[in-house]
């Protein structure tokens, strides 16, 4: 593992994440995925939005871009459209992706552009101090929901499915290998891939919801997650309160950049 870290991380930086934050594990899962994928680092473009999660691009040794809050996907779309040979990964937080970037998210899903989006979901705005996000569960507390959240949350998997993403998966940091494998599969998939990575934020979520201990949060992840395969054999009662992980959608559909290239080829044009 050490070798992987050295290879895919920039060595000259301290990171900003709190002790017990799950983001580092997502980063490790991503590094392992890159190792499996065997991509040349020079061909990888990692793009993020704003938030604790989005600082990840500062630590990765590839071409990286830390964009504006919610805007990582359209930036990545323009880059991918112009340089299709690049392997484009987008890192977003839950608020980043589904609130301020929600419109961009559904349209990237719909367009089916060949980008791998990793949504680091900790159910809270961590960097700004623990305000509730569209993925904060109903009833949970946040600094802007001190009496309990009355917003109903999105299910990111359902949102991505409904919007037309052709690869949709969910993993969590208590199952690092599974998460890494999902990133590999998502990257190999031709089209828009969404991988929700459940990650604990003990500082800004745990603290207000009686789970300030990182180990305890990881244990909760272990307890509530059930793979879609295992869930098939479980009863409705057994599945009560569980969160499914694994692959939910994996289908083929025309990919956006390839379709555009076909259009260009149909004119046999090209001064590129």
């Amino acid at each position: 593992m050490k070798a992987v870290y050295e290879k895919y991380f920039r060595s000259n930086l301290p990171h900003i994440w709190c002790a017990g934050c799950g983001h580092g594990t997502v980063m490790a899962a991503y590094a392992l995925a890159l190792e499996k994928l065997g991509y040349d680092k020079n061909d990888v473009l990692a793009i993020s939005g704003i938030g604790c999660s989005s600082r990840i691009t500062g630590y990765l040794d590839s071409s990286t871009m830390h964009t504006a809050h919610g805007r990582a996907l359209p930036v990545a779309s323009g880059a991918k459209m112009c340089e299709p040979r690049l392997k484009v990964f987008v890192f977003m937080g839950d608020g980043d992706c589904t609130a301020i970037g929600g419109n961009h998210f559904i349209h990237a899903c719909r367009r089916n552009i060949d980008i791998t989006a990793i949504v680091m979901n900790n159910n809270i705005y961590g960097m700004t101090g623990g305000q509730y996000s569209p993925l904060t569960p109903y009833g949970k507390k946040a600094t802007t929901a001190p009496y309990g959240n009355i917003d109903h949350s999105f299910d990111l998997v359902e949102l991505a499915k409904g919007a037309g993403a052709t690869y949709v998966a969910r993993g969590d940091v208590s199952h690092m290998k599974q998460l890494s494998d999902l990133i590999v599969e998502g990257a190999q998939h031709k089209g828009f891939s969404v991988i929700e990575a459940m990650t604990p934020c003990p500082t800004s979520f745990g603290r207000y919801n009686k789970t300030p201990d990182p180990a305890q949060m990881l244990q909760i992840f272990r307890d509530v997650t059930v793979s879609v395969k295992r869930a098939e054999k479980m009863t409705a009662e057994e599945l009560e309160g569980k969160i499914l992980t694994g692959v939910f959608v994996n289908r083929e559909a025309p990919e956006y950049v390839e379709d555009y290239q076909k259009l260009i080829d149909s004119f046999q044009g090209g001064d590129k």
Partner: protein
Amino acid sequence: MAKVKLLQGNQACLEGAISAGADFFAGYPITPSSEVAEQAATKFPKLGRKFMQMEDEIASMAAIIGASAVGHKAFTATSGPGFSLMQELLGYAANAELPLVVVNVMRGGPSTGLPTLPAQGDVQQVRWGTHGDHSIIVLSPYSVTEVYYQTIRAFNLAEQYRTPVILLMDEVIGHLRERFDVPEGYQPEIINRKAPESKENYLPFRNTEDGVPPFIALGQGEGSRYHITGLTHGESGFYSSNPQVVDQFIRRLSSKIEDHVDEIAEVEECYTEDAEILLVAYGCSARASRAAVEKLRAQGQKVGLLRLLTLWPFPDKLVAKHCAGKKAVIMPELNLGQMVREVQRVCPSDVPVKSFTKIDGSLFTPEEIINFMKKGGCL
């Protein structure tokens, strides 16, 4: 031989972008700029270039930022409401020093305003619309042919100074159909962002003598595994809050443009040498002003016109020089007096500067301008 054909301003803009080497357009439909997008959608795939319709203007800006970061010449076109949405990422492009062109075909505002009628209400927004200190380049064409040349210039300046450039058109220029006077086979000078002498130890935001850091596109092999952020950063591209680094960076964002105002800012002088009364105007207001000047000259009146082709950076010294010694300086604008503030700021204090404003959705006529001068006791 001149190629004589009729073209709309928005079409001429696309032709200019093609000549300039733009190969990516991302936009969102909005009157009165949609023809630029339609033309790009039609012509770009035939030329091996790419067009994307985005979900909104924020995404449009984002997409061209992504395109520019990987080394492409990219642009978008919009109008007031869309341009307001673009302010966030216009600041990002300024901060990350990514060359790109934003075409803003102005319409009446605020808000939805007058979608199909002319106004010049965005001339300060283009400069100050996004938060924080930075400079920016804004060009204002006044004819269809000039739209073509100015579009090319917009791309060249963006590349040369690693900055977003705004081509600010009036609704009537965008929709105007007039003679397109570009010589057959015209080959413009094309400027590309400068590359570093060596890719080794590349510093993407290096402080160079001219203030413009050499560029390696992301994803282009050696030297390209660097970081771009909208956070304040040092030469390496990584976040810094070190006061010295911040100070140097923010000052450079402005000075790399302001220090080159003489090379960037263009004006056209029309009967200015012996003029006693000077009109200062831009865009469609300069057309009416020019007609007014011609009429008054025919009557022997010593009136001249200083036409601003570049609104920002504002050519302080040049305008001050032209204003000096005049009996009066008059600035007609289709707003409540926005650019006139700049003229007042630089004009010698003994020269009166009069603002002539119109915001009813109609254009100035030359007669209105002449009457304004008469009423004001200038003639």
